[in-house]
């Protein structure tokens, strides 16, 4: 009963957060100074009267209330509204791309974690030279994901998954190494070592259970990082995913698409926080 109440309360918080996120994004879009700007207004082939008409038409349709109603009706119909650019339901644009992005994200996050963990594990045991051996991750951390993607594209080696892996490994490495360092110093671990436990036993039986709850928290952070990195990566590698769709929507001022993608990402982040937090509380020693 208590668990059901906790889950219900958390679910309610997610719904409130997502509703507020939707309202906030609509307000942000609607109040942005160029919301009514249309690329066609800059086109000389349109007469002044036509341009004024376009502006008036958009102003009539673009009140906060009507935008919200359009969005709500689109979400209720399950088509997430209609794309300004392609004039088709947004859901038709997102659905085929979702799988592509989800696959890249899943592989990138898994490999990124693996790389960060495999590098952090031996380095966390070093008393000296940890900074030197960890330097590649420090350098990777300072390279914008867009620049990294361009570099790999030009060199003809690797693809979106490799770039995402490196971006995430660089971000997670320091956190994992710090966790492992603290875990190695735990009194029960020192006792186990003194008792002659093998390194694999130490890692599997003592270190991992100790750091698992914090690793779960890292999952949400990794997802946020991955979602931000996926846009330049998909654009540069020309991957037909949700990130590329969001970028194309931003370039063409297709705000219904951008709104739907943003809310989708917000939902993914909130849900991952929802799943990682109970895991943390259940996994905590």
């Amino acid at each position, binding site marked *: 009963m208590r668990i059901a109440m906790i889950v219900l309360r958390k679910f309610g918080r997610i719904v409130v957060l997502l509703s507020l996120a939707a309202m906030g994004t609509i307000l942000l879009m609607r109040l942005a100074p*160029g919301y009514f700007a249309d*690329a066609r*207004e800059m086109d000389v082939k349109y007469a002044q009267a036509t341009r004024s008409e376009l502006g008036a038409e958009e102003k009539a349709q673009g009140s906060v209330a009507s935008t919200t109603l359009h969005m709500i009706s689109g979400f209720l119909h399950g088509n997430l509204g209609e794309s300004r650019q392609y004039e088709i339901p947004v859901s038709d644009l997102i659905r085929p791309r979702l799988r592509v992005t989800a696959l890249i994200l899943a592989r990138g996050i898994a490999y990124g974690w693996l790389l960060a963990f495999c590098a952090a594990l031996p380095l966390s045991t070093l008393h000296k030279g940890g900074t030197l051996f960890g330097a590649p991750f*420090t350098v990777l951390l300072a390279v914008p994901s867009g620049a990294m993607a361009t570099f790999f594209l030009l060199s003809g080696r690797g693809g979106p998954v490799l770039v995402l892996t490196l971006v995430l490994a660089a971000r997670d490495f320091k956190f994992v190494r710090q966790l492992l360092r603290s875990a190695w110093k735990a009194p029960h671990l020192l006792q186990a070592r003194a008792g002659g436990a093998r390194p694999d036993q130490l890692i599997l039986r003592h270190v991992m259970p100790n750091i698992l709850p914090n690793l779960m928290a890292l999952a949400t952070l990794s997802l946020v990082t991955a979602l931000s990195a996926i846009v330049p990566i998909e654009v540069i590698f020309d991957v037909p995913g949700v990130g590329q769709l969001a970028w194309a929507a*931003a*370039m063409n*001022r297709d705000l219904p698409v951008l709104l739907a993608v*943003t809310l989708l990402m917000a939902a993914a982040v909130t849900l991952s926080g929802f799943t990682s937090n109970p895991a943390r509380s259940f996994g905590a020693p």
Partner: protein
Amino acid sequence: MSRRFACTFLTLLVLVATVIVAWPGHTYATQDRDAIMAGSSAEHWTGTDDLGRDRTVRVATALLLGLVCAAAASAISTSIAAGVGTVAAFSPGPVASVLMLLSDLFLTLPWLFLLMIVRSSLPLNASPMHSAAITFLILAALGWPACARAVYNGALELRGSDWMIQGRANGLRTGQLVRQYLLPHLRPLLVPQFLLCVPAFLVAEANLGTLGLGVAEPLPSWGGMLLELDSSAMLARSSWVFLPIVLLVSVLLLLECLAYEV
């Protein structure tokens, strides 16, 4: 790498960039039509871009603009975090809950997508300076929630401390308590936050720039300069194209070193 080394090297970079920008002759927008995509020469030390603009001056301007704007955005972001966290800690429960819900809301929304929404909603004729100001203002508006939560927790702990209770017993108002007692104790939290936000904002601007949604031309920015890497013609002609990325990575490393050493 020590904090002193990072500080000295950064100061040196800023000084050199300032001298290059202030030097009479080329500006970041001046075009030399006889030297389009030129390599290194006596006139253009690191060559020119595809519009014949001096790369040295443009990189120096991007460095100064990036650092100044990112530092300003970071100061705004840290101030918002300090304000929200402190107000939440000294307010009744419902107000604190609303403020923390607001910070959760901002944490939920991925930065880049919000930035893309706002940048794509800007007027088509927005000036380069406006685009730079708006880009960094949005970054400042989005960067405060995580720190606000930390400030809130820190301020909650400090609120119940003996010296705060004594201060209150001596008749100090909440404002005075916050100014005289609380903020100095929160400084160890706020200074690293300020220093960590600067490289984070520079990277965010660079990523936006590589998507063509950063600071508008002809104003040079890290993101805009990195776009040159997309041009195979430029890459074939000169290796100086890599100067912006090398310099950006160096600046970010120095800033991160500074932040972690503090």
